[in-house]
C-alpha cells in the first residue's frame, strides 16, 4: 500500500493509503478529541468531536477525522475558532446527559463548555455506541443495540441474549464514557424484566 503525504497543523505527515486523518494525526503525536472512537472498533463517526478542517481540491470542508481517509497533499487543521466553537456546543449538548463524566469534563475544560447550558436529560447515555459496537464487533454477541430514532433513540439490552451472555462478560462497562453504572443499570433492568416471572429479587 502506497504512502500518502499530507499536512496536519503545519506538520508534514506521511501515512499509509486508507488510514484515517485521526490515525495519521495520532501517529504524528497530534491529538484530536474523540468520544465514540475506539481502536478495536470500526470508525463510527457519531460524536463528531473529532471534526477538523480539511483543505482538499481547492475547497475547505469540515470532516470527521475518525472516518475521513487521508489523501495526497491535503491540509488539515485540528484547531481553529470555528472548530473550537463546534466542539464547545457538542460538549455542552452531551454534558446535559452526563455532567460528571470525566471524559466530558476534560473536553469542557479545553473548549470552555458550560455544564448547564442545556436542560438536564433523564438518561446518562450519550449514545456513543461503544457498548453496542463492542458487543457486535468484538464479542459478536449483539446483546445490546440501538432502538428507535432521533430524540427517542436509546440503547437497550436484548433480554434473550443478555441473560445468557452478559453475566460473565461485562466488558462494555469500562468502555462507557459516562458511567459504567448506567450500563449496569440498563442491563439490570432488562434482566429483571425477563426474570420477573420467577419473582426472584435480583441484587445489583
Amino acid at each position, binding site marked *: 500500500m502506497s504512502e500518502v503525504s499530507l499536512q496536519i497543523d503545519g506538520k508534514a505527515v506521511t501515512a499509509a493509503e486508507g488510514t484515517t486523518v485521526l490515525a495519521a494525526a495520532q501517529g504524528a503525536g497530534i491529538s484530536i478529541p474523540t468520544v465514540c472512537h475506539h481502536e478495536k472498533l470500526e*470508525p463510527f*463517526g*457519531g*460524536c*463528531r468531536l473529532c*471534526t477538523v478542517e480539511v483543505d482538499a481540491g481547492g475547497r475547505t470542508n*469540515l470532516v*470527521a477525522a475518525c*472516518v*475521513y*481517509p487521508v489523501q495526497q497533499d491535503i491540509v488539515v487543521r485540528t484547531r481553529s475558532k*470555528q472548530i473550537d*466553537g*463546534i466542539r464547545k*456546543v*457538542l460538549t455542552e*449538548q*452531551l454534558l*446535559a446527559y452526563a455532567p460528571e463524566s470525566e471524559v466530558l469534563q476534560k473536553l469542557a475544560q479545553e473548549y470552555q463548555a458550560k455544564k448547564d447550558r*442545556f*436542560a438536564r436529560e433523564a438518561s446518562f447515555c*450519550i*449514545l456513543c*455506541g461503544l457498548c453496542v459496537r463492542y458487543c457486535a464487533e468484538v464479542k459478536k454477541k449483539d446483546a445490546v443495540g*440501538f432502538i*428507535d*430514532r*432521533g*430524540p*427517542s*433513540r436509546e440503547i437497550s439490552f436484548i433480554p434473550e441474549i443478555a441473560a445468557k451472555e452478559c453475566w460473565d462478560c461485562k466488558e462494555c462497562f469500562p468502555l462507557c464514557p459516562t458511567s459504567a453504572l448506567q450500563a449496569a443499570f440498563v442491563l439490570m433492568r432488562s434482566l429483571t424484566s425477563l426474570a420477573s416471572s420467577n419473582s426472584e429479587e435480583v441484587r445489583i
Partner: protein
Amino acid sequence: MPRINSPAELERLRQEILSKRDPDRARVAVCAGAGCLATGAEKVIAAFNAEIEKQGLSAEVTTKGTGCPGFCERGPVVVVGPEEICYLQVTPKDVPEIVTKTLKEKKVVERLLYVDPAKKEKAVHESDIPFYRNQERNIIGNNIKIDPKCIDDYLALGGYSALAKALFGMAPEQVVDEVKKSKLRGRGGGGFPTGVKWEAARSTPGETKYVIVNADEGDPGAFMDRAVLEGNPHSILEGLIIGAYAIGAHEGYVYVRQEYPLALENVSLAIRHAREHGFLGKNILGSGFDFTVKVHRGAGAFVCGEETALILSLEGKPGEPKPRPPYPAAKGLWGRPTNINNVETWANVPLIINKGADWFTGFGTEKSKGTKIFSLVGKIKNTGLVEVPMGVTLRDIVYKIGDGIPGGKKFKAVQTGGPAGGCIPEEHLDIAVDFDELTKVGAIMGSGGMIVMDEDTCMVDVARYFLNFLAQESCGKCSPCREGIKQMHRILTDITEGRGKEGDIELLEEIALSTRSASLCGLGKSAPNPVLSTIRYFRHEYEAHINEKRCPSYACKELVSYYIDPEACGACLLCMKRCTSDAIAGGRNLIHVVDQVKCNRCGTCFDVCPAKFGAVIRLSGEPVPGAIPEELRVVVRKKAAKQETAKEAR
C-alpha cells in the same frame, strides 16, 4: 405478448398500436393520480363508463384513467378528445351532460371550464389556462395522455425508443458523455452532476454493479416523484435501463416508500409489462444486454432518502447514513459500485438520449439545465405540480402559475426545498430559481417542494414545525444532528409559547452552526436552514415573541387572546354558538364575553363575527381588558342609536 427482439420490431409494434388508434376518435381522459382519486376521480370514471354505455357510445368512445397533469387544485381533471377540452372539478353528476353535449353534440360545457379570474375569460384547452401556459412540461406533460397501467400508451408516444437508440447506436461511454454534456444535475436535492456520478460508477472496476431509483420521496407536501411514478412509470424504467447500460449494471432496484400504494402498484405493473416485452431481462431488444429490476418498499423513514441510508435499508439494516467517502459509486449496495438517482433524474434520461444534450441545455440557466418539477402548495390559489425551466423567477411561479394568495391575503414567504429548506421573503421573489441562486438566499432546491405562506403564518412557528419534523426523522446516529435539532426545537417551542429569553436567537445561531457543520449527512447539514433563514429575514418576528410576548401573525396560540368589544358586540349569538370550547357567555340582547380561562384560542369567534359588528378582537402582547360587569351587559336595542355608538367607539 411476444418479446420484442430488435429496434425494428419495436418500431413495427409502435406502428401497429398507432394504426389501431384513430386520432380523431372521441376519448375521455380522467386524471387517476392520488390527488384526483381523493376528490372522486374513480367515481367519475365509473360514471363515464356507465353513461357512455347508456347512451350507446361504447363503440365510439374510449375512457381511461391517466397520470396526474398537475392541476390538483381543480381536480378531478377531465380532458375530452380529440378536441382536448379541459374540464375541471368534474363530479359524477356532470358526466351525463358532458357525454350528451360534448361527446354527442360536439359542444362545450361552459360551466366546467377554467375561468381566468383576471380577464373573466373561459379557457377551453389546457394550453389556454395560465397555470399550464406558463409551464414547460417536458416530463409531466405526457401524464394526461398515458394510462400508466397500459404500456401501449407509452409505446405509442415513442416509449423505449431512447433505449433502442442507446443500446444499438451508442457505446456505454457515449451515453455517459451525452448525459455529462446535458449538464443534468440530480433532482433529489444534492444537485450533483448526474453524468459525473455515472462515470464514477462506470470507471470503478467490478463485475457486479447496481443502479437504484430513489423514490423515497418524504418531504411533507411534496409529490413530484409520486406523480411520475404513478403517472408515467415506464419513463423512469427506460431511464434506469439506459443508465444501467451506461454504467455496466445488470441489476437495479426501485426503492419506493410504502406510503405510495398506487405508485408501488403502477411501478410493479410497469416492470412486469417491460419484462414481457423484452425491455427487461436477458438480451434486451436482442442487444445482448441483460438487466433486471426489483421493487423495494421503504418502511417510512425520511432519512432513507439519503443514499447511504437507503443502501443500508435495502440490505435489510437500519437506515442510518454512513460517512462518505467511500461514495456508493466506489462501495455501495453489498459493497459493490452503485449509482443512485432520484425519480425525476431518471425520467430526464430518455429525453436527453432521444432529443440530445443540446436540446436539453436549451432549457435552464448556465449551471442548472433543463426543467424542474415543483409541488406548489400552501397558501396559494392553484395548488398542484408545476414543471418550469430552471431560471424562472419565484414571482412567476407564485403569481403567474399559482395565481397568487387566496382570500386577498398578503404574501409573506415561500419555503423551498422541503422541511430542511429555507424561507424566502418578498424581497427575493425575483431571483431565478436554480440550484445556486436558491442557495445564495439561504434556501435550497431540495427535491422541489414549494410551500407558500401568507401574512397569517408565523415564521417562528414555521421553523418550529419543520424542526419538529426533522427531530423525529433524524436517525439519531450523530450527536450534532440528534442533539442540535432537539435543542433548537426546544428553544423554538419556548419562544412560540411565550417562554423566549434574551439570547435565544444567538443560541439558536450557535447550535445551528454546529449542526450544519458537523453533522454526518445531508439531513443534519441542512436541518438548520428553516431556523437560519427565518432569523435572517424575519428577525423582528423572533424579537416580538421574545421581548413583547407578541406573535405578529396571531398564529401562536399561547400568545394570542380573543376579546369581544362590548361597544361593538351586536349580541347576535353567532360566536357563542360556534365556540369550540364553550367559552363565550351571553344571550339574546346580552353582550357576549369570552372566558379567557376556558378559551382554547381557536379563532372561530374572530372568523364568524359578522363584518358589520367586527366585535371580536385579536390581542397579542397586550393585556386583555377586564370583562364588562354583568349588570351592564344588556343591549338597549335601538338600532340606529346602537350603530351610532358603535361607530364612535371605533
